[in-house]
């Protein structure tokens, strides 16, 4: 974890918002089918830092679980692989109004795998499930859930794997500690 650091306004919001890095931490882990407890530990740590409620925590866990399951299944073909997870927590303050009620917290999850780089964009396109019980195809549901939960999802193929960037926003709460 790092100390709180003021950083420049982001490119997405050059004037309106200032971001403050509250916490950052990273994990190296094995990507396996049974790593839910490790992901839960990451989310419990994150949730405690931002005072997330149960629904928000469960949704973040669900998105991480779905992404890790996809990497394990499609990337590593049901074999054990490596993964790195970085979590950054930022507070955004509206600099025009300086109104605390406009503060928001953003959690950025960066996942790195070392599987075959994905270059087929169609594979990454989420589609809502069919509403007809007779013809529902659950495939791609995990990707749909990730996109539904997260505010943004980005994928970057690398020379030796893939990088996944997911952002989750929620309203800031008072007395949020930084730099612990």
């Amino acid at each position, binding site marked *: 974890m790092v100390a709180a650091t003021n950083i420049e306004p982001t490119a997405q919001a050059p004037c309106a918002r200032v971001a403050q890095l509250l916490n950052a931490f990273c994990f190296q882990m094995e990507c396996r089918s049974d790593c839910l407890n490790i992901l839960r530990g990451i989310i419990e740590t994150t949730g405690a830092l931002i005072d997330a409620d*149960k629904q928000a925590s*469960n949704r973040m866990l669900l998105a991480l679980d779905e992404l890790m*399951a996809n990497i*394990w299944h499609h990337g590593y073909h049901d074999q054990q692989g490596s993964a790195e997870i970085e979590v950054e927590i930022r507070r955004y303050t509206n600099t025009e109004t300086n109104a605390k009620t406009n503060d928001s917290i953003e959690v950025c999850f960066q996942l790195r795998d070392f599987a075959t780089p994905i270059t087929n964009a169609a594979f990454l396109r989420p589609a809502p499930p069919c*509403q007809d019980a007779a013809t529902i195809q659950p495939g791609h549901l995990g990707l749909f859930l990730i996109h*539904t939960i997260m505010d943004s999802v980005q994928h970057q193929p690398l020379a030796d794997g893939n990088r996944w960037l997911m952002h989750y926003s929620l309203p800031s709460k008072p007395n949020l500690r930084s730099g612990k």
Partner: protein
Amino acid sequence: MTPLNIQIDSHDKAQQRIVIQGEINIHTAPQLRDAFLPIFAINPASITVDLSDVPFMDSSGIATLVEGLQWSRTCGGKFILSGMTEAVRDLFGLAKLDTVFTIV
């Protein structure tokens, strides 16, 4: 992760009840699928899946339940999900499948 605990109440062959305890994800969903297979063979009029002790489920669990739903529909039977925890109910809402299943 702890394995799923699955209990099947076959007292009435026409009304099968499956009680699940534990988390359903890509690691444990195959256990649930394996539990469904002998029930499908009985061809009951209804299958009720009790999810009141399932604190977490992901799309692998949904996929298995979709399989059960589709099998039941094909055979003219009912497939009912009962006792959903908050997290599981939220999942079905996120997946937009809360109106596809019979949920009590």
